[in-house]
């Protein structure tokens, strides 16, 4: 995958998040460099998803800032979003479209790279399902289609919320390979997962929100 | 110096204490001005040659109508400040202003229709001003309904700010289109609903009441904002101490 990796880094400064009068986390600091991964652990409801949505810029932190290459992400707006991709709990794909149509939409929303849509589908082991209505795919296949969106745009930062949900053992290994290839080629990863995410030669930071 | 004051003012604790001090200083002059306005309006001002004494309703109706517009603009402004610079204080002032504005709009509507009864014999007349007030009331109710529908206080405040800004842009358009519509469907029987020619003896009470209503809005919005502060800061130490004391 020939993805150009610039050296910008994602950094959090004294982040704080409060929900229903409970402080989920406060003055949280970390720095994510190219080629490294951040793995968030913690019980359900400990604020993992909120933190990821803060890193994406969807949710505002109650205190602190998130910077991309030393500029606050809410100042950058689309200039930050072009470098990142986010896969949340919900797949973000249309059930009444075919996988190809879904990927075409995802590519149009971001900065296209030079991989073909069919090749992206093949990488997540969905070759042959190009024209099947997404509604007729299994939950695991739909999840892999959602993750295929990461491959069709030129993004260096991947923010994934429980990427392995509803995947079988084979599916998990396919996706782990992609994550590994992404980080070894200089990409960045922020992920929450209940399964162990084994990445070979990438520096991994772990943050436990319910410690 | 100003930045320090503004920063200090923005902290909820200081605002709560400061508002507590300010409220009586606003409430007393408001009461005095109201009494003066009532005295000049109800006793001193001569009856109108055309409407007799029924025109005295004007001293409540007109200031209330002015306030209904004024508060909506203040609410939209405070909402915008809260939205852009994320100042909690501005958000709380905007949220607290909505019910007061709605009350003044309701008051303007009721007193307007009561004032119209002796002149036209019916309780409701599709007069341009009353119709605009009615639509303004719906705008207020929309703001209040939206604020109650969203659980997260910070998100509710930002949604209300956007709705108030959209509303404040539409108010002049609605007003103009209703005026235009009114001249279009001018029924022969409906006389133009205008105030009797204002000379000094009637102008003084009107202005007294207008200023009194502005002071009234000032101290009531501070009272409601203090409740917002308590509600939002219920977990902080100073609120718990305060709750223990009382």
């Amino acid at each position, binding site marked *: 995958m020939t993805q150009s990796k610039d050296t910008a880094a994602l950094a959090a400064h004294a982040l704080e998040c409060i929900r229903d009068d409970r402080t989920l986390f406060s003055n949280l600091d970390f720095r994510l460099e190219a080629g490294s991964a951040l793995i968030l652990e913690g019980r359900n409801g400990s604020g993992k998803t909120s933190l990821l949505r803060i890193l994406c810029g969807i949710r505002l932190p109650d205190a602190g800032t998130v910077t991309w290459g030393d500029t606050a992400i809410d100042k950058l707006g689309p200039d930050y979003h072009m470098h990142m991709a986010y896969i949340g709990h919900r797949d973000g794909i249309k059930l009444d479209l075919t996988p190809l*149509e879904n990927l075409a939409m995802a590519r*149009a929303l971001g900065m296209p790279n030079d991989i073909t849509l069919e090749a992206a589908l093949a990488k997540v082991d969905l070759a042959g399902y190009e024209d099947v209505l997404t509604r007729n795919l299994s939950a695991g296949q739909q999840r892999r289609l959602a993750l295929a969106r990461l491959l069709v745009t030129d993004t260096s930062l991947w923010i994934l919320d429980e990427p392995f949900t509803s995947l079988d053992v084979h599916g998990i290994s396919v996706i782990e390979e992609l994550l590994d290839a992404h980080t070894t080629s200089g990409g960045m990863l922020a992920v929450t997962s209940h399964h162990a995410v084994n990445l070979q030669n990438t520096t991994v930071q772990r943050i436990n929100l319910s410690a | 110096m100003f930045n320090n004051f503004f920063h200090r003012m923005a902290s909820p604790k200081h605002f709560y204490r400061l508002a507590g001090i300010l409220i009586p200083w606003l409430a007393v002059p408001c009461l005095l001005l109201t009494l003066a306005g009532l005295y000049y309006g109800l006793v001193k001002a001569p009856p109108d040659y055309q409407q007799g004494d029924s025109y005295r309703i004007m001293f409540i109706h007109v200031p209330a109508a002015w306030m209904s517009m004024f508060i909506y603009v203040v609410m939209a402004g405070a909402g915008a400040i809260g939205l852009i610079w994320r100042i909690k204080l501005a958000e709380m002032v905007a949220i607290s202003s909505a019910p007061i504005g709605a009350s003044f709009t309701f008051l303007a509507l009721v007193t307007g229709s009561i004032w119209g009864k002796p002149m036209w014999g019916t309780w409701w007349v599709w007069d341009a001003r009353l119709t605009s007030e009615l639509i303004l009331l719906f705008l207020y109710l929309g703001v209040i309904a939206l604020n109650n529908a*969203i659980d997260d206080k910070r998100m509710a405040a930002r949604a209300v700010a956007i709705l108030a800004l959209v509303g404040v842009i539409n108010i002049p358009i609605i007003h103009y*289109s209703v005026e235009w519509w009114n001249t279009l469907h001018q029924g022969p029987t409906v006389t133009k609903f205008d105030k009797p020619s204002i000379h000094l003896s009637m102008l003084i009470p009107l202005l007294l009441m207008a200023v009194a209503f502005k002071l009234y809005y000032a101290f009531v919005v501070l009272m409601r904002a203090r409740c917002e502060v308590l509600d939002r800061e219920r977990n902080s130490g100073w609120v718990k101490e305060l709750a223990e004391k009382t």
Partner: protein
Amino acid sequence: MNSDSLTRAFVILIRRDLMLAVRHRAEMANPILFFVLVTSLFPLGIGANPALLQAVAPGVIWVAALLAALLSIENVFRSDFEDGSLEQYLLSSHPLSVLVLAKITAHWLVTGLPLLLISPLLGILMGLPVDAIKILFITLLLGTPVLSLIGAVGVALTVGLRKGGMILSLLVLPLYVPVLIFASSAVDTAATGLPVTAHLSLIAALLLLALSLSPFATAAALRVSLS
């Protein structure tokens, strides 16, 4: 962010929404049926006296169109919110207001346009003279986009709420008043043969205002609702 990829995204988003609408062809008929049904209720309620019907026809047709637009505007963001695509628009490398404009345009093509095309039939149903029907068509052509644009702000504010529909009408209907006034009076004046350029230019002004402001307000509202 070069502009041609922005226009490509704009076109692809509209084409995708139209494709989705075509795959739910049955749902496309709802606003039209509602529009025809509500309009034809009035003669049953008011009575079939042609003079009376013709007098109330502009207001009745326009109120019915307005309610049909309000009914259908709800799902401009609803399905995207539920399957998570709405978040992806926030995170795209294109400005959100442009994507929102694409969504609203697609929604207007699916619901506003059909109302437009069926309106002459309703004009005949209510006994409007021919040139009044022509003006009705033009007012709907200029007016229904305004309804979609203003409605979109209300939908964006209430998309996160469980029962957003109820509140939506309270938020949006007061803002529909100017369009309703200018449009129905335009048709009314046209029925008496007087010139209507003033009315139409006012509606066109409302359209330009809505076109320039509503996408930004809707984008800001979406950011708040999804945060």
